[in-house]
Each structure stands twice: as C-alpha cells, then as structure tokens.
C-alpha cells in the first residue's frame, strides 16, 4: 500500500490532526474554518489554535484559491493561555 506523506505531517499537535485530515474535509466541500475546527478539533487543544490556525488558514487558501485575509479566524476567547483554576480563583477559599 502506498502511504500518503500528508498523513505524517501534523498540523495540530494538541489533537494530532494531520494535513491529510484537513485536506480531505476541504475536498468534501467543507471549507469553513469553524466547521473544520469542530470536525477535527484543530484549535481546540491547550494551544487554542495559536500554533495550528495559521497553518490551517494557509491550507484553506491554497486549496480554495481564497486570499488569506478573506479567511475569517475563529473567535479568540479568554484565557489567552491556559490558566489553572486555582490561579483564577486567587487561591482564596471564600466566595468571590
């Protein structure tokens, strides 16, 4: 069996999503980054897309012919980086 080299290229390292996973979806007509996100979980791991989203945008642009700036990114939400619940509640055991 011939192996597709795109199966070895990891785009999202939080959730082990490969270039092939993403391109297969685009080939099926799913080109919206919000849908690709929910089907593959790119951008939903601890890095919240800070590593993978630029790569995914590049793939979508290349495969669909859209310009990079035309591709809208998923919403950025707090926290910007992972923060522990203990830090968020200030180590305080009283009601906030």
């Amino acid at each position: 069996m011939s192996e597709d080299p795109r199966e070895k290229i990891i785009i999202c390292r939080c959730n082990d999503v490969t270039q092939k996973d993403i391109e297969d979806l685009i080939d099926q007509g799913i080109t919206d980054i919000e849908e690709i996100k929910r089907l593959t979980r790119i951008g939903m791991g601890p890095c919240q897309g800070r590593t993978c989203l630029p790569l995914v945008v590049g793939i979508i642009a290349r495969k669909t012919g859209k310009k990079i700036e035309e591709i809208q990114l998923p919403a950025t939400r707090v926290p910007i980086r992972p923060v522990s619940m203990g830090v968020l509640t200030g180590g305080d055991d009283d009601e906030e």
Partner: protein
Amino acid sequence: MRNEAKTVIIGGGIVGLSIAYNLAKLGEEDIIVLEKNYLGSGSTFRCGTGIRQQFGDEANIRMMKRSVEIWKNLEEELGVDVNFRQTGYLFLLYNEKEVKDFKKNVELQNKFGVPSRIITPEEAREIVPSLNMEGVIAAAWNHTDGKANPFKAVFAYANAAKKLGVKIYEYTMAKDIKLENGSIKEVVTDRGVIKTRRVINAANGWAKLLNEKIGVNIPIEPYKHQGIKTEPIKQGQIEPMVVSFKHDGVYMTQEADQGGVIGGYALKYGPTFDITPTYEFLRGVSYRFSQIIPALKYVNVIRIWGGYYAETPDGNAAIGKIKEIDDYYIAAGFSGHGFMLSPAVGEMMAELVVNGKTDKPIWFYDPYRFARGELRGKAIQMG
C-alpha cells in the same frame, strides 16, 4: 438552490436536522433545511453534551427515555459514532429538602422505567473518588444517563438526512415567511425565494423573530449561558455528569473522547444575542468546580465560550402546530435541553406532521399554554 419544496425546516441545529431525518425516514420527500450560518452554529455546538432522564415530570422523563433508546442505537442507525456513553448523572444533595424533592422525582422516574435511585455519600464517592463530600448527605444517581459529542451528532443526522434526499442549505438565512389567505406561500431567504406550503420553525434562539413576521406570539427569548473546558486529564476521573444545585446549578463531566472537563453553571445574561464570554463566568465557574472537586485547582482552563438557552417562561420547549396558519409548526425554546431531547423530538414532530398525531406527550409542550397562563412545573435545569 431549489426554489420549491414540500417542507421547509428553518434551523440547521440538531433539532431541525433530527426532524428532517425523521420526516424523510417516514417517506416524506422534497424537504429543505435552511441554516443561516453553518450547521450546529446556533446552540447545538455550544452545548454542555449532557443527556439525562432525571427530570421531575412525566413528559420530559418519557421523552428522554425514548431519546436515550435512540441515542444508544444512533451509531448503528446513522452509521457514525457520536461518542454516546452511558456514564450516568450524579446529583449531589446537601439538605433534607433536596433529598425529599429528589426522592419524589426518582419515584416518578422509576414509574416510567428509568432506573434512578438515591444513594449514600459513600456510594457517590465510589463513582467519583475525587469529590469533596463535605456537606453532602445523599445523591441521586442514574447510570443510564450519559453524554455524546454534539459535533459528531449534528453531522451524523445531517448526512443521514442527505442520504434520504433532504436538501440542506447552509449560509442561507430565512428572512421572512409570506402568507396567502392564512396559508404559507413562500419563504424568503437572502439567496432567493422558496415556494412552499409547509414550514417548521426550528430556529430556537431566533424562533421568535420568524414568528413575529407572521403575527405568531410565543414567548421564547435567548439568554447567554457559558461553558468551560479544561486541558485533558487522565480518563475515568469524572465519568458521570456531576451536578450541584447548592453551587448554583453547576454541572461538569469529562469528555469521553478528549478527557477535558466540560461544564458550566447557572450564571445567565439577557435576553440578548450577545454571546461574548465573560470574566465573571470564568472566575465563578472555576470557584464552583474547585469547591466540588478540589484537585481541579491544579488543572488548566483552556477555553470558555458563550451560547444561547432559548428560554420559555417555564423552561420547557414549545412544540406543536400553529393553529392560525395552515401547516406551520414550531419546535423551539428548548431552554438548554435541545441536544438531549433531539432524537425523540425529531420522531414526535415527524409523526405529528405526517400522521397528524403522535403517541408521545406533545400536549406538554403545547405552544399555546403560555397564552392560556398554564405554565408547566419548571423543568429541572442546570447551567
């Protein structure tokens, strides 16, 4: 896009898609589903993933019992694993009044074949060893409740519906419904007009906006609720959905496929269409989570997000036929229970549309109950 259909369903969330699939399964042809954004984008993809039969009234218990039967076989029926797992729901009870209320609910649930029961704090701790048992005097437990993956479930229903001939148009917003002598003439979208005689409003948070266009008044309002997700932790630590009303309706569970902790609590804003997440929620939910499971203090939060509960005055959906207009139906206002109820609601609605009647307790969800001032007992609701 086709410009004519026998049935137009407005709303491509799990409820609209389940109705479309079930109509097609009963042999209905020529069905269009309209979704203004992408499938699941309104409420389904923002939900807390829980599926429970522990309600406090006959109708919701029966509907959820049927839904769980369908959820169990959904992979087989639709051909896609939707990560449905029967990991149970565990309600932590902190005072005699709560125990009394839950005993009553358990009796009713048992009567309709749901195997829920009241257990001791020790038994609860065996189910979730990391629980803080301080103040807990009992728990309500049903091992046949569970959770599923909303993303996979939406695409499973959508693909199964498409295979049966349903046309699904995303990024197509229904803007108006035109009438002619009390009958529907057409649905106006931002991509053109669709001639049809039958419309099913499954727009949940936006249902009211469509109803207003044709003079139908059913009180459904969108409220912002929020969810939280942590980094993955070792699987098996919080298997069931853990709920505490003492901590403002907090609910949490570990996702079956990823292992992150997901949940929320009853903080809400609205009515509003704004779903920007808030710091107040992030801090409030972290506080409540770590009250229930202290070790969560050391776990990182990776995301919070907002979504709608499309709420009615009694927290139960409006499902049924609208009398003033021929062939106009509504299934909306799910108040946070649309995802779990969607399999049985799809069946019920399809039966109503095709046969004009259904064995399921549709009377309970009568859209006219609000006008008559006959509110139902408030549905048990978290988050």
